[in-house]
């Protein structure tokens, strides 16, 4: 059967030049048709690519180049800008507050990955038990916190974590005599933020894991059981490898989301909080760019963060390749 492309090609107005027949593949089937390249307008592909390239250049490439230029300037709004060379980057490398923000962000990320995800997986495994009644209801209950925005979560937990009158301190005081003045939002800011994020995202990640668990082959599980593998061995050697692609995706999503953290501490603490315990990289960037007006320094922060994350991604990729090898 002639490929449709051959008919299409022959209808285009193009001079018939002696061109070789080239294989054209459609999905899994390579079809050898008489596609004559010279019959097509050679500029056609560029016309088709043009809209995307224009938008990409305008909204991605140009801002990127502009932000590099901006990072070498000190600004007070768009009109006042002075070239300062690498001064912003040099200052940033010695900026204790920036590194504090990086440290806070990394700690929060670790809390997300090492606390939230195992909890999500555990919940998913519980929900995946055969014969469980009300699975849909439980899934909705666990997933529903992620339906409200981070700003709402921050406001709710701001009230929960209040000293002396907050739900948590009052409840624990009544039950176990806990200190009602326990300063969650003054001295234990990071645990408070991790708890709030845990409440919001555990259900969200649980849904991914549940979907992955439901696709684990039951035959493999049964075969492993027949071979004498216990529950732990089945989990480590059957379940985990089967859900690894989804788990990798969820981990990556958590890391990216954690590094973009801004609304939760901004609404919960009104900024970085006492001793900047809740200051994150994006918040520091915002404070410098939009509160102080120094867009140049903010751009430098953005680029340094991009370099740090890029380095991390490269190292992770190399380690993964080494592991595969």
């Amino acid at each position: 059967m002639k490929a449709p492309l051959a008919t299409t090609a022959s209808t285009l107005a193009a001079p018939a030049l002696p061109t070789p027949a080239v294989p054209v593949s459609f999905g899994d089937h390579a079809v050898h048709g008489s596609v004559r390249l010279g019959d097509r307008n050679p500029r056609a592909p560029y016309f088709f690519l043009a809209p995307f390239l224009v938008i990409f250049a305008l909204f991605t490439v140009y801002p990127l180049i502009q932000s590099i230029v901006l990072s070498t300037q000190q600004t007070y709004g768009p009109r006042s800008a002075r070239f300062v060379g690498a001064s912003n980057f040099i200052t940033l490398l010695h900026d204790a507050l920036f590194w504090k923000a990086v440290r806070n962000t990394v700690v929060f990320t670790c809390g997300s990955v090492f606390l939230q995800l195992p909890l999500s997986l555990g919940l998913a495994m519980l929900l995946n038990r055969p014969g469980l009644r009300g699975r849909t209801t439980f899934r909705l209950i666990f997933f529903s916190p992620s339906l409200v925005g981070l700003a709402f979560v921050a406001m709710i937990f701001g009230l929960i974590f209040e000293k002396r009158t907050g739900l948590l301190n009052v409840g624990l005081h009544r039950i176990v005599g806990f200190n009602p003045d326990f300063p969650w939002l003054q001295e234990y800011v990071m645990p408070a933020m991790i708890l709030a994020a845990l409440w919001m995202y555990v259900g969200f990640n649980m849904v991914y894991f549940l979907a992955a668990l439901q696709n684990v082959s039951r035959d493999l599980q049964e075969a492993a059981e027949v071979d004498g593998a216990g529950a732990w061995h089945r989990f480590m050697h059957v379940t985990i490898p089967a859900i690894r692609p989804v788990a990798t995706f969820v981990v990556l999503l958590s890391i990216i989301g954690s590094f973009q953290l801004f609304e939760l501490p901004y609404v919960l603490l009104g900024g970085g909080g006492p001793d900047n315990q809740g200051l994150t990289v994006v918040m520091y960037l915002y404070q410098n760019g939009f509160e102080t007006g120094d867009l140049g320094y903010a751009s430098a922060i953005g680029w340094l963060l991009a370099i740090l994350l890029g380095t991390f991604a490269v190292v992770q990729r190399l380690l993964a390749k080494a592991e595969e090898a």
Partner: protein
Amino acid sequence: MRRSKRDSRRRACGFLSFGGWSIVFLACVTTVIVVVWPIPRRPGLTMWTAARNHTLIYDPMVQKWNAHQTPRVNLYLISQDALARRMMSGFLSDTPMADVIEVEKQVAGRAFAGPIDDVGFVDLTDKLRSSGIYGELNTPSLGPWTSRGHVFGLPHDVHPVMLCYRADIVEAAGIDVSKIETWDDFAEAFRPLIKDLDGDGRPDRYALNLWHTSTDQIETLMLQAGGNFFDENERPTIDTDANARVLSTVVSWVEGPRRIAADAPEFTASGNQLRIDGYVVSSIMPDWLCGVWKQDLPQLKGKLKLMPLPAWDRGGRHTSVWGGTMLGIPKSSKNFDAAWAFAKNLYLSEDLARDLYATTNIVTPVKKFWPKAFYDVPDPYFSGQAPGRRYLRLAPDVPRRTSSPFNPLAKARVQDALLELRRYALEHSAFDPVRLHAEARRQLKIAEDLVREQIDRNVFLKETAK
């Protein structure tokens, strides 16, 4: 075979479904409508404010102005954040702005960060001096609106500070506040009020509402003690004995065996409940906070009294300052003369002084209105005291402040210094202010160096200095 025109049209129509084409059509039509539709603009001047209480007072005054004067004024109430963003956007990017803007101190400082010629407000220095208004105003009230010797706004207030206490609790304990002159006197006199009321081993009542995270109150105490963040030339003066003394004392008040203070945050429901419960017996109270408490804490009516702040030393200052608002005219205003006439009419009128005090307890910065009788009216909320007169007695002694755009940065660094000092006190079990003084100086030096580093980075201030 050439495709027929009908086939081409059919292919084009088939590119999208009927629903898809409907959406495209609606999008195009609404785009045209939005672009072409004229935005209705009210004629006259526009004024922005972020204080709801102020609009209640300004509305009748604006209506009176509009009845007799031109151009008319349109008053808009917008949120503080929105006002700050629109103001900075207007200054930096020439987006539409009001003709008159009422700005709070923290927001106004951001307008002074760049080159002096780029400050978006009109320089009113010459106007104030030539018209004699400068001499009519309480001089310290101009400080926050003055940058590099130029005055950019009319002050709205003075904001002297007193100490507000639970008279029902204090007088029942037999404490005579007239004998209290210094903070040491206060700590000793009020210490017997610290009690465990429910038998759980933890105090349920403290003498003072203050915490190591109460940045505004700590700045207020520093100003009272003669400290400051910047000098007249806007160079940082954070590392001083006065500032160190305040930090050391605050640490001894919030931690250790001589603790007298607890945290009942202002502007929160939980803090209000703690005040009603008597968890904290006294609070640092600027005049504007009186109006807030009247609104939020009607349960405390008749239970409160005001006293001058205890001084840091005998014969020292018995007041401080907290907050502030100004009225500025952006350079983009199309009718400066009319805006200036309206601003003077609003801010320098006796009507405003009277209504502002009646509604919010805020005393005017215009000295010629200070003797007026409405400041002497007894207030049942404060157990029959006349708060206005009490605040005005202290008004001439209000400390000087600067308008440095680095003020928020300095406050944040001082906050860090205080937190480090507290950590030091807990690690070394050292809660005596005298023992903490050296460490306080060390932390304040670090804070000052960090602020100086940021100031020295600012190329625009260097250009102005040249």
